[in-house]
């Protein structure tokens, strides 16, 4: 088993590479699709400058409770148009990772049939967290949490 401390997610999209890439760097599009269930991104919070040293900023707002917001503020460290986006995010808004710089890498690969394989890599996580997440320690942890707490 590899010693990876990164989260890797791969997904195939039914669209050409350029289209998928643009969805990440076009502010209008980001505002249209980004966000987990129950959250939206107001267009006026989106600011994207897709160059090395540029940034990607926006705010996710809860549909149910608009006072609940979650800002994203990433700086691009690598940009290859239609191929690669690598950003670093300051995680000071997330207490559990205060001060740690998280790096996120998004690769866009061609897939047959005019499709695109997107590979998202995020990390590094402390090795113990990666190991525990892999082995499904979260549920064990909840039990331990009850024991400790």
């Amino acid at each position: 088993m590899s010693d990876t401390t990164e989260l890797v997610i791969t997904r195939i999209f039914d669209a050409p590479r350029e289209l998928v890439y643009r969805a990440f760097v076009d502010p209008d599009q980001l505002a249209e699709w980004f966000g987990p269930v129950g959250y939206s991104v107001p267009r006026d919070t989106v600011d994207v400058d897709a160059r090395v040293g540029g940034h990607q900023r926006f705010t996710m707002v809860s549909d149910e409770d608009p006072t609940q917001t979650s800002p994203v503020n990433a700086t691009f460290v690598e940009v290859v148009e239609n191929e690669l986006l690598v950003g670093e995010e300051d995680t000071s808004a997330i207490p559990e990772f205060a001060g740690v710089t998280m790096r996120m890498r998004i690769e866009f690969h061609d897939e047959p049939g005019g499709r695109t394989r997107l590979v998202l890599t995020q990390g590094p996580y402390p090795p113990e967290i990666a190991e525990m997440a892999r082995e499904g320690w979260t549920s064990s942890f909840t039990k331990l949490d009850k024991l400790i707490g």
Partner: protein
Amino acid sequence: MTTDRLSTIFAALADPTRRAILARLAEGDATVSELAEPFSISLPAISRHLKVLEHAGLITRSRSAQWRSSSLQAEPLREATAWMERYRRFWDENFARLDAHLHRIQQRSEDQQS
């Protein structure tokens, strides 16, 4: 909490004897002898385990030399391990929306062409 802090906590929890000690302390304070009882290892060895747990902030010692568990670290710890799973779910949902979005915009341009 820094990654160093988290690493210290995880290293402390990585040992089954230490986890058992924590479980015992969850039931109430205990002395070193009481904690050592279920194990076939020496008192000094138990003391070493206790030092590791104390250094990680998971237990504290009272003035009467009783050890007690400290719940201060439990929540951020649980949160940290849940972080990767939450993040994976977050991106799964994001990608589902991106998928629908890409279908929509391609459909839009097809409609415009026909």
